[in-house]
């Protein structure tokens, strides 16, 4: 369980820290951070990440573009991607799911919600 490798992408360092602490509480200790899609994508392509958790609204490359870039990359096409964002329009959620998001958590969120969605995504990953 503790060998799952996370990449957490958010332009706010407070939010990255919150997610990182929560993941550590859940027993995940291998966590890398990035502050937008442009810095995240090379990390994803170079490293062997198991889960990507990304914000949407970021300067530089927004999360939806990062998601599309991940799905367009044969090596990353199956990577579980959780959108963790304050973006709340239905068309955005539909767009994210159609672009291949594995889960969508709206901010502000609870520790329970994050755990629930991660468990679901990782169970799906184990079964795949």
């Amino acid at each position: 369980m503790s060998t799952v490798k996370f990449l957490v992408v958010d332009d706010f360092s407070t939010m990255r820290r919150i997610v990182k602490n929560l993941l550590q509480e859940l027993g995940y200790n291998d966590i890398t951070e990035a502050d937008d899609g442009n810095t995240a994508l090379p990390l994803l392509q170079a490293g062997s990440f198991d889960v990507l958790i990304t914000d949407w609204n970021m300067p530089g490359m927004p999360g939806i573009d990062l998601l599309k870039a991940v799905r367009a990359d044969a090596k990353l096409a199956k990577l579980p991607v959780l959108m963790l964002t304050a973006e709340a329009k239905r068309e955005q959620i539909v767009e994210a799911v159609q672009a291949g998001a594995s889960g969508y958590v709206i901010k502000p969120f609870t520790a329970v919600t994050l755990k629930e969605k991660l468990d679901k995504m990782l169970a799906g990953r184990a079964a795949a």
Partner: protein
Amino acid sequence: MSSTIQDPERYRARVAALQSALDAGDCAAFHRAFEALSEQMDAGLLPELRRLTATAQSALARFSAEARLDKLAGHEVPDARKRLTHVVKLTDEAAHKTMDLVDSCGPIVDEAARGAALLLESWDSFRDRHAAVANLWPERAATFLERTRADSEVLRGNLTQLLMAQGYQDITGQIIRSVISLVDELEQVLGKLVRIAEGGEVTNVMRSLPDQPSWERGLGPQVAGLESPDAVSGQDDIDALLSAMAAGK
């Protein structure tokens, strides 16, 4: 008013009429002549006076508008941006400070819980083996340890909630950042208006402004009273939407 007298012949006639009425002691004629002279003077003066007033007024209006625009574009709007940026910085620092404290409290709580559990464990085995001596340890101590163990769990939960609550910094930061970009646009528009007011080239003020925020780039959090009609109400709403989409596939 140092210009030459306009139409001096007419003045000469009016003055002559005035003089003869005065010489004749004709009060009514004197008044008529005086009125006529006065009217002629007014007629010459008024347009000039009007022109001067209008020029002064427009110069004043132009000056105060330019001064106000200059102040807005040069100081107040950039200051507004600095103030907002400062708020984001302050909340960021406060949130990190809070999380530093949460981080430092975590191990203390864990240690208290672990210590209480260990003591309770040895207390249980000791009591079983030396019932007589065990009675020397007051029951209150055992109750305290039980309580410490239970309270530690509550404290742990509260620390997690405290951590989650710092998410406000991200939400408020996103909202403030969208106001900052609005202020940026305002600054650009004002800058162009100032150049136009200074007699510069009249260009399309709105051209070359950044694009309107799009949902592809992200619109930021919903704000009470300004909610998009197309926004979900929360996580349950999203989960329902996702389920419906999965079922529709």
